[in-house]
């Protein structure tokens, strides 16, 4: 007989996607922000030279898409320097911005630096709700910024985080995106991490709201045809199989946080018992291929039941490790969105609560807006609860 066939170890591809979170500073206070709730603990941001080195190392390791994000990336005055170097290295450069700080002069400097694309986030299309949800008066500014983006010839992706409080205005949001000349519109339902998890009950739409929004989105797609491509992302709480989070742990995504921590996704720092390297101490190639944190959930040795023997395990890779930790208390468990998960009831209970009648914002529990004061309070409460254990 032949010797048993050797199953080759799956090869680890390059970190194609680099998310450079260059700062947590942000003029907005969105209640659905995915930045960690303890972001105020970050005080030592990487400096310009650090970031230039990270860009060079990541490019050498095969990264090709680079997104400058935050916080608000325009809060750093060396953004243009970083974009220019990224572009020179051959990255496709994306700027994810709220638009605050994008003056005509900075737009011109970014254009000269070779910036390829700007994604502009809107909180909503009606002024009052927009100001309320982002907690600042930014709506008029975003309209001006959208015009600046178009005037510079950048392709424009508009992104609007959708949730219980704005989903019923989805027609206004779509119409406004078309009016502003956006080529792509992402209507991404809030995902329940970090600040959004704190505010989940206030943000999770009802089934009826989602069905209406999808119907209207389809009608608008018909109406506008090729003028705009609209993506609508349903909250995963309404699914019965989890998302293939980050296309698989350590598969294509590399996030570098403002203080230099390298993560397989932008929320992974919450996971206990895992150490993630810092780009100040370790090169990108070593981080990607060799570090404990990046290897922890590669392959399927880490999987438990029901994932381990699940015929669909390669389709979703067990879902999101952070969601498993947050909702099932174990980062190696099945993502509780999966109806095979023993913690699926946690998701069902949240969904059940979301079926209550939609009431005016003022009648709901108050939202916790992202901000340094609440961040410090949450850090302090976390310390106390650890001390009490």
């Amino acid at each position, binding site marked *: 007989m032949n010797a048993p066939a050797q199953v080759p170890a799956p090869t680890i591809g*390059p970190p194609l996607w680099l998310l450079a979170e260059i700062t947590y500073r942000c003029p907005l206070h969105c209640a659905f922000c995915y930045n960690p709730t303890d972001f105020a603990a970050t005080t030592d941001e990487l400096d310009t030279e650090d970031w230039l080195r990270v860009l060079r190392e990541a490019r050498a390791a*095969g990264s090709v898409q680079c997104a400058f994000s935050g916080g608000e990336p325009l809060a750093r005055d060396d953004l243009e320097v970083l974009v220019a170097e990224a572009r020179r290295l051959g990255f*496709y450069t994306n700027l994810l911005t709220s638009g605050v700080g994008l003056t005509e002069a900075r737009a011109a400097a970014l254009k000269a630096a070779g910036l*390829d*694309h700007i994604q502009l986030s809107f909180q909503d299309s009606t002024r009052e709700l927009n100001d309320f949800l982002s907690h600042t008066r930014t709506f008029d500014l975003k309209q001006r910024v959208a015009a600046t983006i178009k005037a510079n010839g950048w*392709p424009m992706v508009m992104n609007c985080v959708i949730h219980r409080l704005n989903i019923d205005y989805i027609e206004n949001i779509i119409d406004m995106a078309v009016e502003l000349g956006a080529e792509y519109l992402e209507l991404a339902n809030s995902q329940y991490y970090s600040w959004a998890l704190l505010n989940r009950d206030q943000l999770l739409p009802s089934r009826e709201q989602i069905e209406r929004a999808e119907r209207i989105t389809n009608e608008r797609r018909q109406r506008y045809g090729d003028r705009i491509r609209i993506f609508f992302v349903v909250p995963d709480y309404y699914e019965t199989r989890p998302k293939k989070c980050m296309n698989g742990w350590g598969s294509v995504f590399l996030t570098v946080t403002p203080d230099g921590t390298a993560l397989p996704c932008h929320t992974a720092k919450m996971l206990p018992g895992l150490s993630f390297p810092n780009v100040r101490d370790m090169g990108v190639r070593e981080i990607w291929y060799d570090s404990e944190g990046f290897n922890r959930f590669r392959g399927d040795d880490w999987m438990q039941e029901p994932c381990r023997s699940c015929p669909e395990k390669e389709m979703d890779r067990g879902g999101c490790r952070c969601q498993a930790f947050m909702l099932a208390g174990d980062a190696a468990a099945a993502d509780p969105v999966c109806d095979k998960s023993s913690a699926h009831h946690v998701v069902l209970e949240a969904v059940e609560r979301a079926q209550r009648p939609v009431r005016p914002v003022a009648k709901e529990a108050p939202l916790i807006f992202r901000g340094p004061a609440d961040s410090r309070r949450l850090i302090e409460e976390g310390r106390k609860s650890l001390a009490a254990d």
Partner: protein
Amino acid sequence: MSEVNGIVVTAKPRVSARFRLQWEEAQQSWVLLYPEGMVKLNASAGEIMKRCDGSHSVDELVAELEQAFDTRGLHADVARFLDMARAQHWIEV
């Protein structure tokens, strides 16, 4: 004027302004980059796309490929690919 699958053979296709075509050493392939995304091209798609520079007509492009790969009869395959590439907005003709 002869046409195959809708694209005139004297037309000079170029990579659309919506995409950037570049060689990726790490992937050993040509890729098309666009906002927050990437299309990885197979070897023959890469060979065709890199010649979509606005200076090669379809006929010239085919002739160059046939010479480079020492073969003949590529016209129909190339035309089919270009038609798809135009439908995907990868090229402007």
